[in-house]
């Protein structure tokens, strides 16, 4: 063991940059997931099972298929997303790593945004795999720019709220049960807006019908991200 020069050669750190801390957390989550694949495989298996079950359960003609698709998709994404959010924060809590993050000399909202980015990437990866499979199973083209924009906006809002609430739920013993109970009432507006806007694109509704829902999605994303930014510090501190 080196009896060292450790103190003389070590450098007193400057306060870590907000952006570097966000990037470090996202890099850490993605690297760990790339190796374990625990979170993504759970989300994916769940999502694929749901769309498969719906495919067999609903014997639909092409028109009805278009109208129910948005509901099936968002139910799938919402429940799969809950699995991912729970797991993502549980990893931090179980080994005490959340304390490790909180001990870093960075603004704690950097921790929140780092987790939001990694959770969003996981959700988008699952969606990118589910969408083509859904398209094949239901014979519907889901690769429309407008629909993809709605999926992105809906996912951002869902993850922004979900990350905040999962960091709250993970402090309790009943975190697996508590997260959906806390999350779903809060994300109801975003799920309704996402379902309506997605449905509008799938049924070729006029833009005037879709636009209010798109605006609601954008407003929700901005408002809830701002709220989470302001309250995260209080949520994670004892």
């Amino acid at each position, binding site marked *: *063991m*080196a*009896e*060292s020069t*450790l*103190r003389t*050669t*070590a*450098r*007193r*750190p*400057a*306060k*870590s*940059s907000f952006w*570097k*801390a966000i*990037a*470090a*957390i996202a*890099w*850490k989550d993605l*690297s*760990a*997931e790339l*190796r*374990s694949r625990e979170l993504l495989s759970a989300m994916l298996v769940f999502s694929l099972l749901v769309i498969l079950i719906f495919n067999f359960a609903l014997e639909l003609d092409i028109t009805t298929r278009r109208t129910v698709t948005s509901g099936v998709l968002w139910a799938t994404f919402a429940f799969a997303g809950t699995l991912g959010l729970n797991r993502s924060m549980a*990893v931090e809590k179980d*080994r*005490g*790593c959340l*304390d*490790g*993050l*909180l*001990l*870093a*000399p*960075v*603004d704690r909202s950097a921790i929140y945004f780092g987790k939001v980015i990694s959770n969003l990437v996981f959700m988008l990866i699952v969606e990118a795999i589910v969408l083509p499979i859904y398209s094949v199973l239901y014979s519907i083209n889901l690769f429309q720019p407008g629909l993809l924009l709605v999926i992105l906006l809906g996912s951002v809002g869902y993850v922004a709220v979900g990350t905040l609430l999962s960091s709250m739920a993970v402090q309790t013993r009943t975190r697996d049960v508590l997260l959906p109970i806390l999350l779903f009432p809060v994300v109801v507006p975003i799920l309704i807006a996402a379902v309506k806007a997605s449905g509008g694109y799938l049924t070729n509704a006029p833009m005037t019908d879709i636009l209010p829902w798109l605006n609601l999605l954008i407003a929700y994303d901005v408002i809830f991200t701002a709220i989470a930014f302001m309250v995260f510090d209080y949520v994670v*501190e*004892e």
Partner: protein
Amino acid sequence: MIEVKKLVKRFGLKTVLRGLDFRVQPGEFVALLGPNGAGKTTFLRILASLSRPSLGIVDIAGYSLPKQAAAVRARLGVVSHLPLLYDDLTAEENLTFYARMYGIDNLNARITEVLEMVGLEARRRDLVRTFSRGMQQRLAIGRAVLHDPDVMLFDEPYTGLDQDASSMLDGVLQTVAGQGRTVVMTSHDLARAEDLATRFDILSRGVIAASSTREGLGKGNLLTFYKQALAG
């Protein structure tokens, strides 16, 4: 280096710390001893800025908690009985992550230096999940000293370690303390505390019930001192 005055911590109706006063000079190694439920971990979590005091003043290295928490955290290294490490990352990746969080420049050289200090250089590319408990705890100390903190807090660092791992951890702790750092360590292991610390504080019912330096106590008297403090 650490100054705590009239510290009170309440969890709902339960008061854990009841007007605790505590002062540590630079370079001191204080063993904070006490029975389960005395408030040792709660106190250390407040010093680590992980928990907010209900009342009282907490200053570390000239910075006040909770207002200047980020400045305090930059000068603080914390080791608990949990390793605060990611199982699915290697030792090197774990340290790289924490080095980025602390804004450390030239991180490769620093990580090598720290891994050599804790005797894990040969295992730097191994996943943490393949490490024994003792190795994880040594790496946890490496994580905690990565940013060269002035103050180290150890919360029951020997929990779950076998005899060999504990002896190895002794060496790492002595190295860390020997570098002029101020150390506060909670422990139930009086023999180890007596070997390592320069001062012994007994925490009982939310206050410091007794305090003595190593010189003032004399060798082999810690157990008697501890029992008397709890009885009084």
